[in-house]
């Protein structure tokens, strides 16, 4: 049919373009991992035995879990207010979430650098108040990385949580209050269990995004707290070890794909139940 030719002519260009410039080159990166410097799985053995690579993977996991926890807690509190507070306060939260959301990664990491470095606003302020004699090391370490990444990810976790809370039947909460439950009790026994699927979804999204994070940790880690993404960059541009860079990329891809599969399965279950 002539019409079908038209329709496929509209559909095809984007997937074809991506297949050529994205999918096929990714297979090229996979090939690096088993051919550079020599044929075999040596690079994969190195990923799981080389103490340097292992320490980077371990640090990445530790930082990402911390970031996921902090992000989910903050996003939960914000979503709760966004959904249930009076309209003027809702608008305040909306702006507080959306302004950082629209500002670039670099600007936001730079803002934290300005606050946290040795002569930064926080150290200067504490010294002027006489609380410290020597500057605290707040940046170019894991602390700075966790703060910066959490700041980046909170808006991404807020949006799914808000949409899950909007679907709640709020009469249940009012009823629990009316029966004399304290606000904390309502949260612990009613609100939190009911929003659990949203919490798991937001936490998984945060974890998926955080694992391959590059810019924020590279700036706030200052080359000392190197996470896996920056490690791959160093392997390609400084050590010129394409094989190990390819192998780590493949391992990271598999981990993220597993998390995405888990996410899809959980949200489907939720749809079937809800």
């Amino acid at each position: 049919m002539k019409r079908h030719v038209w329709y496929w002519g509209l559909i095809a260009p984007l997937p074809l373009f991506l297949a050529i410039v994205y999918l096929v080159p990714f297979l090229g990166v996979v090939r690096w991992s088993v051919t550079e410097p020599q044929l075999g799985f040596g690079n994969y053995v190195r990923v799981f035995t080389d103490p340097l690579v292992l320490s980077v993977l371990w640090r990445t996991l530790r930082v990402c879990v911390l970031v996921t926890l902090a992000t989910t807690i903050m996003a939960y509190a914000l979503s709760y207010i966004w959904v249930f507070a009076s309209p003027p306060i809702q608008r305040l939260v909306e702006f507080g979430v959306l302004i950082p959301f629209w500002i670039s990664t670099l600007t936001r990491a730079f803002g934290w650098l300005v606050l946290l470095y040795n002569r930064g606003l926080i150290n200067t302020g504490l010294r002027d108040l006489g609380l410290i004699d020597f500057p605290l090391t707040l940046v170019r370490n894991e602390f700075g990385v966790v703060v910066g990444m959490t700041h980046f990810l909170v808006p991404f976790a807020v949006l799914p949580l808000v949409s899950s809370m909007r679907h709640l039947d709020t009469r249940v909460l009012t009823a629990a209050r009316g029966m004399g439950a304290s606000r904390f009790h309502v949260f612990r026994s009613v609100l939190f269990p009911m929003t659990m699927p949203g919490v798991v979804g937001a936490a998984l999204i945060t974890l998926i995004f955080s694992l391959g994070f590059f810019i924020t940790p590279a700036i706030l880690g200052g080359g000392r707290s190197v996470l896996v993404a920056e490690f791959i960059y160093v392997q390609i541009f400084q050590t010129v070890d394409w094989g190990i860079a390819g192998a780590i990329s493949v391992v990271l891809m598999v981990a993220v794909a597993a998390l995405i599969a888990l996410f899809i399965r959980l949200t489907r279950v939720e749809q079937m139940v809800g």
Partner: protein
Amino acid sequence: MAYRPGPFALALMGLIVVFLLVPLVAVVPISFTPSEYLALPQGAYSLRHYRALVDDPAWGNSALLSLWVGIVASALATTLATAFGIGLWFLQPRLTRLLVGFVIMPMVVPPVISAVTLYFMLTSLSKFAGAIGYDTWPGVVIAHIVMISPFAVVMVLVALSRLDRRIDMAARSCGASVPRRIFSVILPNIRFGVATAAFLSFILSWEEIAVTLFITSTKAITLPRLVWSGLRDNVDPAIAALSVLLILVTIVLMVVITVVRARADRKPAH
């Protein structure tokens, strides 16, 4: 009576909003420092770092390059995404889920893996066609299209999902050709979705740094690439001045969009 949060939750929310906004506010005083390095102005204020943005041609050139790359990449990505979305909407093939899943991959794949992949692609391309490969502006455009088209696709699909199929059926039964149906029926009805897709993909290209860092070195220096170089070595306070300007533009744009959207909501579409 509506359920309302208590004082503890409100206080916690206040602290978190401060946490979210404080790094954006912090760059403001730093940008007015008279000193050559990052420091709070001690009594004296200066606009020298704003002047530096104008006087040093590197900033202007990078901004122009980013603007150009953003316009070209967003126009191409939006066109590809709109055609893709409209085609799927017409045909509704069984493969829809698979195709959509495939084209939004760059959105969920960790940016560093996309960066390595596009670095591999562009360095290979450089061997045949140096002008569009590694460290060239067309190369940056190709890479940006990959990274931004998933977002454009999502915007277009959302707009199409709200479209009433009966208006297209009417056009079809009146004998309208496929181009006629696209340009006279579908596009006028999803124009806000397409405009949002174009705007969002421009912003994403304008800000893109993770991939750009892998695929450029000395020639195709976009604005974020230049900021990155300035952040890694001795931090240049001109970056603070630039950040203040970018934050101001963002806030103004947000207010404008909120107002425009509020007006569009008030006026019914037909």
